[in-house]
């Protein structure tokens, strides 16, 4: 009896080796998106929109059409794309600088208008690509290259909880925060990512999946230590769970 593959490379990923650092969980999140597109048969009618950040080159790793947005503007590009072609599946893939800093206006208004695309928000509490600067999501006391004494909340305020913020909007949407720092959480994150694309396939609503992610290089930790840092430091501040469902009462 020949062996069956019970885990292989999804069709929506190319076989290019990524440029991401060892242990960076971008790779896992890319795969969850790719698997969801495969399982829902969406690959050939999907347009992805890349951010500016470590994932700026993510279009080399996804086997679907892609656009490269200016920093923070991906939700506006997604709005234009989806309004021009509502039949296409459209998703953006953004980091904390892209989404929670320069792009907050585009995020809030796309969500508020109920644009029917999906945002995958990768929250690793830092600016990775540019070398480890403070992000709006950086934890209090966290040392970064632009907060060398640790984030001082008296000076720059507290980290932004994007999922909760977007969940306060009245327009129906699907908002959930998940993590990928343990196998169990990865399995849960997959469920949420797939759910977001299912809602889009059904033409229901805007969806945002915030994924707590690691940045070993700029956190100054090994990949395994980084997973623990998510558990110990990020999780208490960024609680996981469903924040808004389109079935909620308006």
């Amino acid at each position, binding site marked *: 009896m020949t062996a069956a593959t019970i885990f292989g490379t999804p069709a929506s990923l190319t076989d290019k080796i990524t440029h991401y650092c060892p242990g960076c969980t971008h790779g896992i999140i890319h795969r969850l998106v790719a698997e969801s597109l495969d399982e829902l048969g969406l690959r050939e009618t999907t347009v992805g929109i*890349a951010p500016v950040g470590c994932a700026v080159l993510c*279009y080399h790793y996804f086997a679907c059409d892609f*656009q490269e947005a200016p920093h923070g503007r991906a939700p506006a590009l997604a*709005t*234009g*794309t989806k309004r021009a072609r509502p039949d296409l599946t459209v998703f953006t893939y953004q980091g904390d600088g892209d989404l929670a800093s320069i792009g907050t206006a*585009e995020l*809030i208004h796309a969500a508020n208008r109920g644009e029917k695309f999906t945002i995958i928000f990768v929250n690793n509490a830092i600016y990775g690509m540019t070398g480890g600067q403070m992000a709006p999501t950086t934890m209090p006391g966290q040392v970064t290259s632009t907060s060398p004494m640790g984030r001082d909340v008296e000076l720059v305020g507290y980290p932004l909880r994007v999922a909760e913020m977007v969940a306060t909007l009245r327009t129906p949407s699907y908002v959930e925060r998940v993590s990928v720092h343990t196998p169990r959480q990865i399995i849960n994150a997959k469920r949420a990512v797939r759910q977001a694309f299912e809602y889009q396939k059904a033409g229901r609503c805007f969806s945002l999946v915030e994924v707590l992610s690691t940045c070993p290089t700029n956190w100054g930790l090994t990949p395994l230590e980084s997973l623990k840092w998510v558990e110990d430091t990020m999780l208490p501040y960024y609680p996981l769970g469903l924040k808004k469902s389109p079935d909620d009462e308006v």
Partner: protein
Amino acid sequence: MAKKLMKGNEAIGEAAIQAGCRHYFAYPITPQTEVAEYLARRMPEVGGVFLQAESEVAASNMLFGASSTGVRTFTSSSSPGISLMAESISYIAGAQLPVVYINIMRGGPGLGGILPAQSDYFQATKGGGHGDYHLLVFGPSTVQEAVDHVILAFELADKYRNPVMVLGDGMIGQMMEPVEFPTDGIPPAPPKPWATVGMKGRPQNLIRSLYLNADELERNNIELRAKYDAMERDEVRFESYHADEAMDVMVVAYGTMARIAKTAIDGLRGSGKRVGLLRPITLYPFPRQAVRDASDRAKAVLVIELSTGQMVEDVQWAAREGVPVHFFGKTGGNIPAPEDISDEITKVLDGKAVPRGLAPLPLEAS
């Protein structure tokens, strides 16, 4: 179609519809908001998409997304809003997307004023956003021209895969004039195999402007430059109003200023003065050769703009060396009357005007 009396802004909106555009994303700003208000009613009538974005930044990026799917799309704004769009204009040019921009200029810099101006010439023809790119720029001087230019803008944007701008001003936007829309059909948009519409049975389509490899980025820039060379060769448009004859003064002006100048020129010609007008219609590509040839027939050139002097620099560069180039400008929204322009032309005719020049740099003692 019979002529219809329409407000400039509304005619511009209708022209886009006639050109087959069904996707409009914009933000209100005086003095062009009527474009958005008109299309808010008209787009749904033709089954199109009208979306008021949360800012000009967002509107311009929505154009990027929509254009990437191969549809004709445009926005309208005014000077401060165009500044906000500068980033995405650069990205759109780098990504080689067809998009049309309407700039109904108002006074600047900064918040400026809401009255007409022509102070965005540099922004439109020389910069705006960063990087080595150009917009193809039209300067209509009547509402009919604005309509014609908008329709042509969509065609040329698709032809060159480049953003195109129609540079009007508050007068073009606000005044009402009779306009005619083309009765025989507009040629259909060309096929767009590069559009991101789903990777079915073909390699990935990627719309981007990032090329980290130096050779790849250079190749993109060389491709862009080739387009601009082609535009400079094939898309120059201008009007010569008595500028093919010998002139004592040749006026160079565009848009509504050219119209006011024509009235002044007619008056002066009536009393026997040899005055002509060269009116650039495309501001990029600038009709350099036409200005040069016409300046050979002129004793002096007078550039008139609703600014403190932007196009005058291109005229100085283009005109034959030795022909003095004078400048007259009004700003703030003060529109000169034909008499004011006649006075200025007369000053030049009488040798009482000082040419616009750069002060010579002091020579260093060796």
